[in-house]
């Protein structure tokens, strides 16, 4: 399966290599560099690259390419999914997954990679188990470690891998027992020039932060479970129970995890919280153009829209923008050609407006293409789909946990065409 892994930064430096079988020379990465060069944008590097004897499967994450080398047939998604899991584990351990943190913690990284894969086949990928095997670094511990010279390898051997519930470690104890659930919904939408919805759907996740002692058995029920017809679960959730009763019943992993994700598809009606009136036009002569954008609330269910940001990818020929914003600040980056308008809170009484002129490269023809607007927003205390958690019950433990549910709606891939 996975033969070797190379980590390569955006500048093309190979800064870590790990082999699970015989060593493969790093010159194999030349094939990757070739493809990288051809692709221009890092996003466009094909995930699977063929070389005469090997296949390179890579992902691009946090400005790092994770390039894995394989030799024989393997489902590509298997490798891709695993590489993402590696990146997530790093993030989990070091707070962020960047070149610096990886270089700083190279020994832990190496130990992690050693545990996660055996002979190229995944061995332990559950964060709870890994944390028992190899303790994540903390400031305090790294201080202690430098003084005493000990490291992060767990002294005791983990039991998690051997238990029937591989995602939860045994003997968890908290003084404050609490369970929090965040229902986060993202609206993916495409609105056309006239403001009608071409396509809209909701991607929801329920993130959980469960800090409960012992071995609690939770069940979470919804007021309107019918909304959820396309769901995927953390392995801890009992499928059958969901199928029969529409209740999410599970023994939670310890700490933070994503309990489930769901998808409310385009067939349902999706409320669009804002509308955008825009007019971006370029004149035939004079190398200039005009821009006028107004944003207003539409279906906000009585909540305030916050953190509103409008991003416009301008055509290459646009040199600068001379605009006037009634609210918030705007910024045009002439290198990346991105116009960013940070509005903040949306005030329904006084609609924010951005208006002004654009100057183009002199002599260049009027651009044919029309830029599209990407919207970012956030609405607290609201799940736009209307999903509501009914109750959370705990069985198996005696104490009374503190429970909380939070709702947030965000814009996902929210795009307005012009």
């Amino acid at each position, binding site marked *: 399966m996975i033969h070797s892994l190379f980590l390569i930064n955006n500048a093309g430096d190979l800064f870590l290599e790990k082999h699970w079988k015989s060593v493969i020379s790093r010159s194999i990465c030349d094939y990757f560099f070739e493809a990288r060069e051809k692709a221009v944008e890092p996003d*466009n590097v094909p995930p699977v690259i063929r070389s005469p*004897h090997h296949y390179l499967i890579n992902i691009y994450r946090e400005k790092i390419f994770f390039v894995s080398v394989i030799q024989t047939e393997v489902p590509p998604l298997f490798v891709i999914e695993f590489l*993402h899991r590696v990146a997530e584990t790093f993030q989990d351990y070091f707070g962020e997954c960047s070149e610096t943190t990886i270089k700083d913690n*190279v020994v832990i990284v190496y130990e992690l990679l050693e545990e996660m894969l055996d002979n190229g086949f995944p061995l332990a990928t559950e964060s709870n188990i890994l944390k028992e095997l190899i303790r994540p670094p903390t400031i305090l511990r790294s201080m202690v470690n430098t003084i005493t010279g000990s490291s992060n390898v767990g002294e005791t051997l983990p039991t998690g891998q051997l238990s029937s519930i591989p995602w939860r470690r045994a003997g968890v104890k908290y003084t404050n027992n609490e369970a929090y659930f965040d229902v986060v919904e993202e609206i993916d939408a495409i609105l056309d020039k006239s403001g009608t919805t071409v396509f809209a759907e909701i991607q929801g996740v329920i993130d959980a932060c469960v800090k409960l002692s012992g071995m609690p058995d939770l069940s979470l029920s919804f007021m309107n479970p019918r909304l959820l017809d396309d769901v995927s679960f953390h*392995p801890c959730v009992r499928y059958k129970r969901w199928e029969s009763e529409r209740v999410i019943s599970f023994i939670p992993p310890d700490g933070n995890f994503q309990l489930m994700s769901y998808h409310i598809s385009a067939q349902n009606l999706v409320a669009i919280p804002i509308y955008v009136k825009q007019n971006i036009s370029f004149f035939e002569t004079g190398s200039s153009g005009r821009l006028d954008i107004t944003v207003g609330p539409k279906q906000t269910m009585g909540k305030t829209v916050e953190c509103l940001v409008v991003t416009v990818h301008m055509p290459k020929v646009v040199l600068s923008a001379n605009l006037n914003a009634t609210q918030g600040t705007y910024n045009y980056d002439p290198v990346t050609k991105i116009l960013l308008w940070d509005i903040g809170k949306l005030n329904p009484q006084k609609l924010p407006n951005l208006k002004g002129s654009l100057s183009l490269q002199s002599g260049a023809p009027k651009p044919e*293409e029309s830029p599209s607007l990407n919207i970012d927003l956030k609405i607290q205390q609201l799940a736009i789909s209307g999903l509501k958690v009914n109750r959370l019950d705990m069985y198996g433990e005696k104490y009374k946990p503190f429970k909380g549910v939070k709702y947030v709606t965000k814009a996902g891939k929210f795009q307005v065409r012009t």
Partner: protein
Amino acid sequence: MSASSAFSDEKGGSASEPEYGHDPASGGIFSSDYKRHDDLKEMLDSNKDSLKLEAMKRIVAMIARGKNASDLFPAVVKNVACKNIEVKKLVYVYLVRYAEEQQDLALLSISTFQRGLKDPNQLIRASALRVLSSIRVTIIVPIMMLAIKEAASDMSPYVRKTAAHAIPKLHSLDPEQKDQLIEVIEKLLADKTTLVAGSVVMAFEEVCPDRIDLIHKNYRKLCNLLIDVEEWGQVVIINMLTRYARTQFLNPNINESLLEENSEKAFYASDDEEEEDKKAEPATLAKRKPYVMDPDHRLLLRNTKPLLQSRNAAVVMAVAQLYFHLAPKAEVGIIAKALVRLMRSHSEVQYVVLQNVATMSIKRRGMFEPYLKSFYIRSTDPTQIKVLKLEVLTNLANETNISTILREFQTYIKSMDKDFVAASIQAIGRCATNIGEVRDTCLNGLVQLLSNRDELVVAESVVVIKKLLQMQPEQHSDIIKHMAKLIDNIQVPMARASILWLIGEYCEHVPKIAPDVLRKMAKSFTNEEDIVKLQIINLAAKLYLTNSKQSKLLTQYVLNLAKYDQNYDIRDRARFIRQLIVPTDKSGALSKYAKKLFLALKPAPVLESPFKDRDHFQLGSLSHLLNAKAAGYQELPNWPESAPDPSVRNVEIPDWSKCSSRKDRKEKKVEKPFYSDSEGESGPTESADSESDSGSGSASASGSDESGSGSESEESGEETESDEEEEDEEEEKKKRKKLDKTKAKKQAEESAESEQSSSAEDRKRGRKAVKNQKSASESESESESSESEEESEEESEEESESDTNVRKKRTPVLKQPPKQSKKESKKETQEMSLLDLDDYEPAPASASVTPVNFLSSSLVSDLEGLSLTDTILAPTTLAPSGSIKMYELLHRIKGEGLAVEYCFSRQPFSPEPNMVAVQIQFTNNTNSETKNLHIEDPRLQSGMRIREFAEIDVLAAGESVTVVMGIDFCDSTQAANFQLCTHTRKFFVSIQPPVGELMTPAFLTENDFKKEQGKLMGMNEILEKLTLGEKCVNEHVIVERVTATANLSRVPCGSDKECRFAGKTVSSGCLVLVTVTTKEGGGAQLTVNCEKMLIGTMLVKDILQALSQ
């Protein structure tokens, strides 16, 4: 391996890497590098763990950066035995990296691992095996092999998992070992833990993917376990099962596909997929019977379906491909939703999923149509995703949605991403060719694009228009004219070449314009790109042939220019064309056909998806993605014409449906994971520690859940087989009735018959009872006898080895002449007599094998020993009362159908009086004879001896036999280990006696008892106070309990508050005296006097437990 050598230039790393030259760790200068290593060596040699650790950390960092640290090998390898677990781990990391290069030195570490393999801690055993198998040193192959074999039968599933991981490692190191490894794989495939399942299938795929026969017996188990296997294992198992199903089941679409296709064909006249099948199928359809899906096929589909909701994209994709390749057409649809959901994931995941969706959408367009909008493109998508989405949209286009799709395409054309725009135009072209109705609209749209400011857009449009026009040139001469005008403006060579080709090809449709174009082009010939020049020559030649009057001179001129061109291709072409078209005296026969050559009717290009026919690769595979066979790709086999025998999978049914829910549940609990949906309440794994216990406890606390899933488990466990089973059952009953009838007629002895049948039933019940005893939780009261009878019937059926074979044996009996059935009945009577002995004959050793027991287990335990109270002196006469506990020696599954149970019969072992008699019952559950059952290789503690039973020559299928063997335990509770051998296999088994079985009753008078007790005071006397259990209300019960616990006899006693028992140890004949004195209020005092203090203590413990229950 050999392939890797091309790139594995191991030592290239260190000095030659310029980018690390400035790195402080590398030292810059070679010599200082050495010095630094000396430094590390010193640290490694020191006594302090902290220094060692620091050194190892630095070395690992060097390895991580790809620097060569191999010269440190001797210094590092010394530390392999280091006590510090952190140092040890890092040393392992180093070893695995460099052992291959330093094979000789690596051998130094082997003994450490070998020691580790014997460690009592399973994690240490596992990690030792892991490292041992990872250091690729050829010399240790035999050691690895041995270690793997041993680990494969380890108690701990985690170690077995590691063994499974080690198999492909060894295989890649030494392919010679394949046969032996396959044996291990076979063994591990039979493993029932989810932990092992994924890893062993992985090993199977790497070592022997073609040995599909190994899967048969494990197929249903794998299906049922699937949901609990860890996600990576799920992917591997699903992919393997897809291949398996393709070889074992019939194509579910064999009939419908034909019908549907026909109707589809009528709708989409332009749609010419799957044409080939059409011809072949009418014939087959006529022949074929209505398709019935194999229940195992259904089982696979049903058990994989919930995995579509996995969070792991690879699992979802694996299930999706399974459904695509295996499910009936009507059911494939469910995967669309899940695949569409994956598109929200990382762009790499999207990329792979879209590739697969593109392939699927060609074959099964309807599936994705409802999700059309999910494939709409955002300006922020990476180009490669955009292009793939476009591909899917194009595949999904049909008459009804084409207008929406075209509108969507229109916006794409305005995108800033030029590659994407070009792809969009091509997509429009494809829609236009596929859907006749919109061809004109598309063409018009494309023509409009010709006036686009962007040259790329125009060029791409020209190329597409060219292709479209080729389909129906007559109607579109005006478009050709329009394009001819464009040639002045368009600069993109490909587009210019396309226009020229069009004009040349259809010069007869535009007779006035064509020569004029040639004139213009002749003028600019020298400045054109090569492809344009070639097309100019082409155009000239064609015009010369059709309209030589106007173009003769121009052609000559162009050819002359070409003659002196810099490019030799062009010069060649010019020379060739001149010879061909310009008639000279030398010109050969070919010139006559020049016109035919140049102006032949050319077939219109077919604009088809690059993903067409990619589905001959297994979807989701690397090969599919690359559209080329990757190394190690396993071809997806075609459906078989007729299904292979489905009964090959039958063998293990009983173990996996009923047994697991009844008898085996308790035992399986150990191995079955807690969460299994199919086994709602099955318990924690191996380490049934408090944690997992509480887990299961909590599960049962959520009452409704439990019952719900419990019933589900029954369902899912049985559903598949239930039909089958029920049928079997009924059949069985019928047959039995018939059988009985025939017998009745034959023998005309009704009484005998009833006796027979009842005894048979008794036997079953007896077996059932044994089971009940084990699964004490199972409480079935006597009143349920009818039900339990049924159950026992079922079970005995299963017991008798998936029964089919037995039935096969029996069926002929029914039909064959009475003689045969006489034989049969004889056999039965034989059995009967054996059973009768149970009931009536007191003494023989083989007697109490199958204690008859109608009582529920709890009652049994309550009444245990009851029968002994009055007749202590002759316990044997009452042996069949069920008081004798059967222990399992070899489980049926482990023994591959051979089940062995034993009990301590409490008979004196006549050949050697100082041995304990052990009664062993063999039951052959396989469908073949087991031969030469005997004992081999006893491994005993010193002083212990075994008197083997005589070898059993043949044990026929479904039969059981009982033998007695003697073991001298030397008055210790050490287990006697030995091998049980059949003609094919050997099983390691052990018998461990409870302390109470190490003695025989001794008959003393009250006075003798007191006298002996007086001799055994002090250290030899053990006093213990206890509170009697609720049920120990009277003397009667106490006596019963004590005698059940230990093989003692009661000594008469004057006081009714005291009970006395006496016995002596079998081996050394030491007296054992027990006194129980009851007090008011449930208190009691237990006194045991025995010279052997150890036995005394253990006996006290056992009796205490028995009494306080």
